[in-house]
């Protein structure tokens, strides 16, 4: 009797499998999620439970997805690039195949194309590191952010590596990324860097393995920046911010290698207001990893930092140590922690306006050697302690959480948000002056054609009162400000 029951159960399962394969509708098992966002293009990826063709419909209203892009042939992992988008525009979308919509065409599936390069759009960035635990820790960090940011779109999302523990396999990514952050993935472009755990199953030289299958990153400068020729390290622009993602695990980190050569070229070619770099292995840390003794950390500090600082990097974020460690505004420190001196501090205060004041740099745009803030934000999935006493750090916390950046024109506000939703650190960087100059250039009490004449005579220059918006160069924006203040 017992064996008959087992046979019946077995037949039922086989029948169920056959039935499902033939009669059940397709479903989306991963995503959709957004990659390589640019002003005029974006890549949408998703996975289905069965093979089918790919189609994305999109438009500026969820009820009118008038445009579409299809790819024939059959696959389970779908990747469709939309092109000819209007910059800084909200699009709704739906994914599916030629016949059916499988997800979207509602208010929950949308993206906003990146703003034009150089334009100053208030930008919110969510930053998580070592988040790949797929557990209640990661979910609490997520929920704290979603609650903090409710009512405010997330423009960009950075993952600092070790995105899926323990080995970055496809199924671990399913749990730690796709099942953990489904709503953000639908609406916000995710920009990652490779951590050592991701590297267990991925190969950067070959750009193969789950990490490289899952992410589609701009190797050809498709989203701004100089082409790197590889997805292992890349850069992109978002409005007035230039982002750089380096690979600190298994790519050659020497100054004569391909990555650092590209880094120097990429930095030399950006004129954006802000330069933000991120990679996994922190140049300064006394958390669960020690930047004095571990090769990858030492090499990134010794080799990448001099290049970044020579071109005026503003903020560097890493993970690997499962803690939050945030530096003063510092420059020129490439040795071990024992050699850190107060002379390396460009500003030894908190960077808080309410206390010692915001960190300041003299001009908007890349400003060499005026200091950068270095943050370890590797506690988005777990905390692992450590001595947490690196002298470059203003603050070190063994606390679960994430970073939130708000960049608006020449001002950046950053916070560390813990998993209970409390802001545990904040700092501000202001570039150039935050008060515009007086458009009455000849101080005659009127803003008129004489002032325009003065402004035109200083056109393209920098060190004059005519740089009304204090961005370092007399240009269109200054003329516009003058005209707005017109009182002849």
């Amino acid at each position, binding site marked *: 009797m017992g064996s008959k029951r087992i046979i019946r159960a077995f037949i039922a399962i086989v029948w*169920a499998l056959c039935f499902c394969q033939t009669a059940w509708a397709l479903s989306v098992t991963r995503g959709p999620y957004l990659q390589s966002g640019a002003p005029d293009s974006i890549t949408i990826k998703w996975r289905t439970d069965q093979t089918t063709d790919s189609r994305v419909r999109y438009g500026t209203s969820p009820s009118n997805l008038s445009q579409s892009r299809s790819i024939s042939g059959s696959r389970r992992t779908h990747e469709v690039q939309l092109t000819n988008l209007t910059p800084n525009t909200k699009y709704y979308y739906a994914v599916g195949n030629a016949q059916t919509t499988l997800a979207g065409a509602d208010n929950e599936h949308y993206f906003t194309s990146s703003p034009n390069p150089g334009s100053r759009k208030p930008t919110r960035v969510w930053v998580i590191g070592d988040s790949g635990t797929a557990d209640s820790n990661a979910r609490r960090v997520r929920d704290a952010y979603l609650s903090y940011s409710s009512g405010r779109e997330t423009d960009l999302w950075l993952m600092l590596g070790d995105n899926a523990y323990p080995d970055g396999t496809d199924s671990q990514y399913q749990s730690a990324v796709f099942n953990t952050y489904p709503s953000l993935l639908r609406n916000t472009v995710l920009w990652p860097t490779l951590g050592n755990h991701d590297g267990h199953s991925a190969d950067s030289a070959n750009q193969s393995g789950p990490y490289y299958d899952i992410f589609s990153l701009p190797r050809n400068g498709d989203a701004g920046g100089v082409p790197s*020729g590889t997805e292992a390290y890349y850069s992109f622009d978002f409005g007035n911010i230039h982002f750089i993602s380096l690979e600190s695990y298994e790519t050659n980190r020497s100054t004569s290698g391909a990555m650092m050569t590209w880094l120097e070229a990429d930095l030399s070619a950006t004129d954006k207001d802000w330069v933000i770099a991120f990679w996994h292995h922190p140049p300064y840390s006394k958390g669960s990893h020690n930047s004095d003794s571990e090769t990858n950390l030492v090499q990134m500090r010794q080799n990448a930092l001099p290049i970044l600082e020579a071109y005026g990097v503003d903020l560097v974020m890493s993970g690997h140590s499962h803690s939050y460690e945030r530096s003063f505004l510092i420059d020129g420190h490439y040795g071990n922690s024992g050699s850190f001196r107060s002379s390396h501090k460009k500003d030894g205060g908190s960077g808080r306006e309410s206390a010692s004041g915001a960190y300041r740099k003299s001009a908007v745009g890349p400003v060499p050697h005026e200091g950068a803030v270095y943050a370890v934000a590797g506690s988005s999935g777990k905390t692992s302690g450590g001595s947490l006493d690196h002298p470059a750090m203003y603050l070190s916390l063994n606390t679960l959480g994430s970073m939130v950046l708000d960049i608006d024109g020449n001002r950046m506000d950053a916070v560390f948000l813990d998993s209970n939703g409390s802001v545990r650190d904040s700092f501000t960087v202001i570039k150039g002056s935050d008060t515009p100059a007086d458009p009455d250039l000849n101080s005659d009490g009127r803003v008129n054609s004489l002032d325009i004449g003065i402004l035109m005579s200083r056109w393209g220059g920098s060190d004059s009162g005519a740089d009304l918006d204090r961005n370092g160069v007399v240009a269109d924006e200054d003329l516009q400000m003058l005209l707005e203040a017109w009182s002849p």
Partner: protein
Amino acid sequence: MMMMLRTLLPRVLCTVRGARGDTTHRDHGLLFACVLSLLCCVAPAQVYAHAGIHERIDEYSRQLLAHPNDAALYYARGELYRAHQKWDLALADLDRAQQLDPALAEVDLARGKLWLESGSVKRAVTALDRYLSRRTAHVDGYATRARANVLLRHFRRAVADYDQAIAGLKNATPEYYRERAQAVLQASDGSVEEALAGLDAGIHAIGPVVSLQGLAIELEQRRSAYGAALRRLEQLPPLLQSTPKWQVIRCEILHHLGRIQEARAVLSGVLDRISAMPASRRKSTVMQGLRMRAEAALGQLER
């Protein structure tokens, strides 16, 4: 597993029945995927779910108490020790792994990396020789040995290893091509032409990325092939060509080609751009260096 099956079976059947009803197909697909993935779950339990390196080492040590002859466990723990730069502990584990399972070739790759990372380059090459005699198409093995050979100044051998590594890649990477060219240039019998040919193979596969094309431009100038240098420069991304550095290089090349007027115009443009920069940027080491280089080039043109 049997417990799990007993719990899940009614749900599978219920789900299948439901598929004929009016519940959405999408929900069934998701549920089915979950159930199926559980039914098919035959992967061994992860020994170290979300642990850090120390916990993972501890976990392997615990497992080794129960399975003292498991070569794979010694190998895995040895790799963790290596990542943590505990060279002696790592070597002891790798040695033990190989004693227990001489067929475990990866031990020699791990040893090779360990010796290389800890500065014993000759030993690294010996281990990697053994490894590559057994795994003849292993990209990482060849690339690691190539780098070891560069350190030993065995540049010709390094070039041969880079060739093997490059041939094994499915997706080309700039770094092996660049390192190969650098090795060729240091080989006593290496030539600029040979280095350029290797860079061009990379450029053909990847595109004129600056890590390859930049070096190629330098080499074209070195062999006084200024026309070729200019053609290559004009293939760089426009964003990069417009930077002061590449504008100055362009002028130096134009000068050699006798295109003096053009060179002069570009140089004064560069100098104007540098002067218009904010003081903090203009006075940076990078910009001061470029300004001096541009002024020197302009001086040469005036002569």
